[in-house]
């Protein structure tokens, strides 16, 4: 199974796992870990915003839609605000080929709710719980692995 260390400088792919359920976080982190991805956890949307404001960047964010403090959708619009403020920086980062891919993870399977979730700015959506093949399909989508 192909794992990737990212660019030729050997930097690992970084991911942020966001869920208020620590059982899910433990499982998703282990999964990502086995694929060679460096991961961090956050318990809610507010923590994610704080992390970004403190300058931390992630290649991939796996975000649960159903969280108490600032749910997934509210976070998306904050991210947009943040990108507008740092528009130039974002463009430079994009020119370098770097961007956070945000993947929504949820148990919701009603089409309308999924659409709402995607419309708020997600790059992809997967149903919980994640499995190695789901994560690999995400990575393939964003060309992090061959």
């Amino acid at each position, binding site marked *: 199974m192909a794992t990737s260390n990212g660019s030729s400088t050997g930097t690992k792919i970084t991911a942020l796992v966001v869920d*208020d*359920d*620590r*059982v*899910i976080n*433990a*499982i998703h982190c*282990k*999964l990502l870990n*086995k694929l060679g991805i460096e991961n961090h956890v956050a318990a809610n949307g507010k923590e994610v915003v704080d992390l970004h404001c403190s300058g931390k960047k992630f290649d991939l964010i796996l975000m649960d839609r*159903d969280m*108490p403090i600032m749910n997934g959708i509210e976070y998306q619009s904050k991210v947009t605000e943040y990108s507008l403020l740092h528009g130039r920086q974002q463009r430079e980062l994009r020119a370098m080929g770097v961007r956070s891919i945000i993947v929504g993870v949820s*148990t919701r399977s009603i089409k309308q709710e999924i659409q709402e979730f995607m419309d708020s700015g997600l790059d992809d959506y997967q149903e*919980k*719980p994640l*499995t*190695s093949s789901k994560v690999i399909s995400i990575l393939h989508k964003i060309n992090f692995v061959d």
Partner: protein
Amino acid sequence: MDSVVLLQRQLVDYTAQLFNEGFLDDQFNQLQQLQDESNPDFVVEVVTLFFEDSERLLNELAKALEQQSIDYRKIDAHVHQLKGSSSSIGAQRVQKVCIAFRNYCEERNIEGCQKCLQQVKNEYSLVKTKLETLFKLEQQVLAAGGSIPWPM
């Protein structure tokens, strides 16, 4: 040597039984696949987290259903969380009761909710006992010098 084979046989049979009776589903296999030499207690650790969180949630649910004025949204939130974590470790029967529980919440059906709370407590208690037995059998195999034949 014989005792190892016997113990392994016991483990395989017990595990198959749990799957056949619907206590565990394929998600549990996924967890086992994540375990390796760098983290040989991964499954036990995650399942232990599940036990702790579930017990907390069941207490919260009991409290919430005793209130004069029932907060169905809060109950639904707790059940949703229990459903999520039980499905993530493959505790299928617990997950199934949670689905019914949420429907009663939506209907604001207090009796239905109380019935489901009792059911989910039972299912949780059953799966906890069975997983603890499973882990004990695994320990016995390892102690006798055998290895865990996964997947089973």
